[in-house]
């Protein structure tokens, strides 16, 4: 299980990009941290989610 924004989630060896696309995220509006470190946007496809990973997905909305 991977903890994503506080929730235990089954990701079954997916890449981060696969997960983000499955969940309908706009990848150009995100900042993703894995185990307290930013995942560079160029690495979403190669980043495989592993058991025990703690992921924070910040999905920005407009306004300021």
């Amino acid at each position, binding site marked *: 299980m991977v903890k994503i924004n506080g929730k235990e989630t089954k990701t079954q060896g997916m890449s981060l990009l696969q997960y983000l696309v499955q969940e309908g995220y706009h990848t150009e*509006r995100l900042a993703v941290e894995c185990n*307290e470190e930013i995942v560079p946007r160029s690495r979403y496809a190669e980043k495989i989610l592993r058991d025990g990973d703690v992921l924070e997905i910040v999905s920005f909305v407009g*306004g300021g």
Partner: protein
Amino acid sequence: MVSEKEIDDALALRHTRQVQEKLKKAKAAVCGLGGLGSHIAGALARCGVGSLHLIDDDRVDLSNLNRQQYTLAQLGMPKPEALKEWLLSFNPYLKICTDCVRMTEENTGELLKDDPYICEAFDQPETKAMLTNYVLEHFPERYLVGASGMAGFGESNRIHTRRITSHYYLCGDEISGIETCGSLMAPRVMLCAAHQANKMIELILQGGRES
């Protein structure tokens, strides 16, 4: 003309000398000078944060005056210049550096090279994401306070400050975008800006605390 010492003494009376000196030595960048950034800069300047770096490529427009810290007399002025004018009107001894440019992946590193504390106060989600990714990837030792979700009105207590990592904090309700709420109003935008400025002051005075 009020002297620098008189202003410092007045601030020290409010904050204690020790806190005032720490704030005066601090340097913070505010990226985006709309409803969030103009109020963040105002709050930091009122506290006596000594050096501010104001960055925005926009000019003051009539449609900004519902929530941003500008006046009719400033219509058409570059926002960094207009904001600087106001900040200096209550503390003329602040060191204020302005950049009237659009932040991109190409120029962000150079623009922020000397800024240990950074506020992300843009309005477009893509620009917010660009700056956040850039700072977290290239400047992991800096402190970043960003915002997402402050459109609409009401629901004050949904605006929060959340720790993402020890060096990155996010303010807002994380849901209410202009895309879905259709309006941006001074009270809720100012609430979010106050969260950001308040977190920044805490980081300057105490650093990032775990938990």
